[in-house]
């Protein structure tokens, strides 16, 4: 089977999964005692407005019809208006998800690049002091409680050393007075630094430990011996032969841990007041802004599914043997 066909198959799988998740959310929200309308109808609305919403979301109809309405609306991106912001949910979400994606993507790429590099080096030098040191550090960071890690970083770098801002994504004062593009970028990066560091510290350990284990297994393969016997330099054997193959399980574990990583993302965003989707879902839940909470969850799930999909395609690309 070609890579293209695999991609199509995998994409269909993604759609099916998303459909099931939508159904799950629908059920979850109907499970709640009382009028399902509470999730979409702000108590502050006028009677007429409430009626319009009921119509719009099919809440007056039977459960199966409501379900169809729900699916249709979700696919169109219609989640109603946020109680708290008073604006359409989709406008708010779009902005928030972008902020999260920036942080998540940079964080993931950096963490995996660093983790895999260190992982392959320490596996090559297994049993050495460097290996022991990094394994210990890795184990420590892997189980670090993310918000606490964030707080400690803020305490050291913002509070004591005053190098970075305490939180947020931009300094309103800077952006208020027509800054140049470079000023904007610098201000943004200045804010990005600490949360990014937290992300990287939180994740590099996982990829490093898996890379190390995977390398240790790969290093026993006969083709590594062949590569050495061919008179290749150690570095070539390590990078081109061992690491290239050892990457495969790391990619798999990445795709499996994406959902879990998003959980960590929620906590990091909260600590650093990063206006992303993770922090939004916490805030709006506490504010009982149900339309936004429900939509945020679906967007997060969709993001996880897409990241998952991407990881699987990368895997299929990296491993010529994938022929499902």
């Amino acid at each position: 089977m070609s890579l293209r066909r695999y991609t199509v198959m995998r994409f269909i799988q993604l759609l099916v999964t998303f459909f099931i998740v939508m159904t799950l959310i629908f059920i979850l929200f109907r499970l709640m005692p009382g009028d399902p309308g509470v999730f979409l109808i702000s108590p502050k609305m006028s009677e007429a407005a409430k009626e319009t919403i009921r119509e719009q979301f099919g809440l007056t109809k039977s459960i199966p019809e409501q379900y169809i309405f729900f699916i249709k609306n979700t696919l169109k991106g219609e989640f109603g208006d946020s109680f708290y912001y008073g604006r359409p949910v989709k406008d708010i979400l779009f902005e928030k998800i972008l902020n999260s994606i920036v942080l998540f993507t940079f964080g993931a790429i950096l963490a995996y690049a660093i983790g895999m590099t260190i992982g392959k080096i320490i596996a090559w030098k297994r049993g050495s002091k460097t290996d022991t040191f990094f394994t210990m550090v890795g184990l420590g960071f892997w189980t670090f409680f993310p918000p606490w890690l964030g707080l400690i970083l803020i305490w050291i770098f913002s509070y004591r050393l005053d190098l970075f801002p305490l939180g947020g994504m931009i300094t309103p004062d800077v952006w208020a007075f027509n800054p140049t593009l470079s000023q904007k970028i610098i201000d943004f990066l200045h804010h990005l630094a600490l949360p990014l560091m937290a992300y990287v510290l939180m994740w590099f350990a996982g990829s490093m430990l898996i890379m190390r284990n995977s390398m240790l297994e790969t290093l026993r393969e006969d083709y590594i011996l062949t590569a050495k016997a061919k008179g290749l330099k150690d570095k070539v054997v390590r990078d081109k032969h061992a690491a290239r193959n050892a990457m495969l399980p790391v990619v798999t574990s990445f795709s499996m841990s994406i959902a879990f990583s998003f959980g960590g993302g929620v906590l990091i965003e909260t600590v650093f007041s990063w206006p992303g989707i993770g922090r939004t879902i916490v805030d709006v839940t506490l504010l009982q802004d149900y339309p936004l909470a429900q939509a945020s969850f679906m967007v997060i799930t969709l993001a996880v599914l897409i990241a998952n999909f991407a990881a699987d395609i990368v895997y299929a690309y990296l491993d010529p043997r994938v022929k499902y």
Partner: protein
Amino acid sequence: MGIIEIENLKIYYKTVKGYVKAVENVSFNIEKGETMGLVGESGCGKTTIGMSIMRLLPRNAKIIGGKIIFEGEDLIKKREEEMEKIRWKEISMIFQAAMNALNPVYKIENQILEAIYAHENISKKEAVERVSRLYSLVGIDPRRAKEYPHEYSGGMKQRAVIAMALACNPKFIIADEPTTALDVMVQDQIISEIKEIQKKLQMTMMYISHDISVIAETCKRIGVMYAGGIVEYADAIPLFKKPLHPYTKALMNSFPSIKGEKKKLTPVPGEPPNLLNPPSGCRFHPRCSKAKSLCRKKAPKFVEYQHRHFVACHYVG
């Protein structure tokens, strides 16, 4: 003088339970253009010897003593960088498990090219041409060089591995059980292929196998190994005609054949020893019917009993 001379080689493996005395005082030499066979049961140390010549022993193995002289120079004394130049260019290998000797994520052509580029400064065109020549030599369609290992059958992989071993025109090739995982008919084809190439290129080879019939068909000179030592080393025909060491005799008697009379065979009693704690004196004595008290006390010397016929036994003949 041989192309390769091994003197008193001694190799131990360090394990949690102690030292495994894997190779003990092994000496032999191989003449240029000769095919030498090393035969013995699993764990007798034959692969360890092959790997020590390439200096590719696992990390827990240690060469305790002895010399491996290749074209007049002791390989044990070489630095790692010097060994890198010798590997594949001077001495190459056909590996035991060809199934796994090829990296699954690269096209086979690239894996052969890589070996060529590591040692020779030639243009891509020339190198690619050489790969197709090698492919024709081992009997695979050169167009299939651009495929991945998983697209090959077992026999083809083995042929590709042989082609790879020949890539840099090495002076000496070590073939470690090259046909063990293959079916008889494929094995037969590969063996005759190897013999033909060996004759054509006048190569020096060391052929390692547990199967005495494969060794009998491929090698001019044979070393029989038991529990870390060579017990007998001789030319093939005299060795089979008149084996001197009791173990060699027993080994030859352990293989049923499809030729000749069908007869009841008697196995060697007991099991091969644990090399963590090998028997004293002659390592074969606990299983030997002719053992006397001297065998228990003193390890026999490896002596040239007849011309080109070495044996390590107190009571030869």
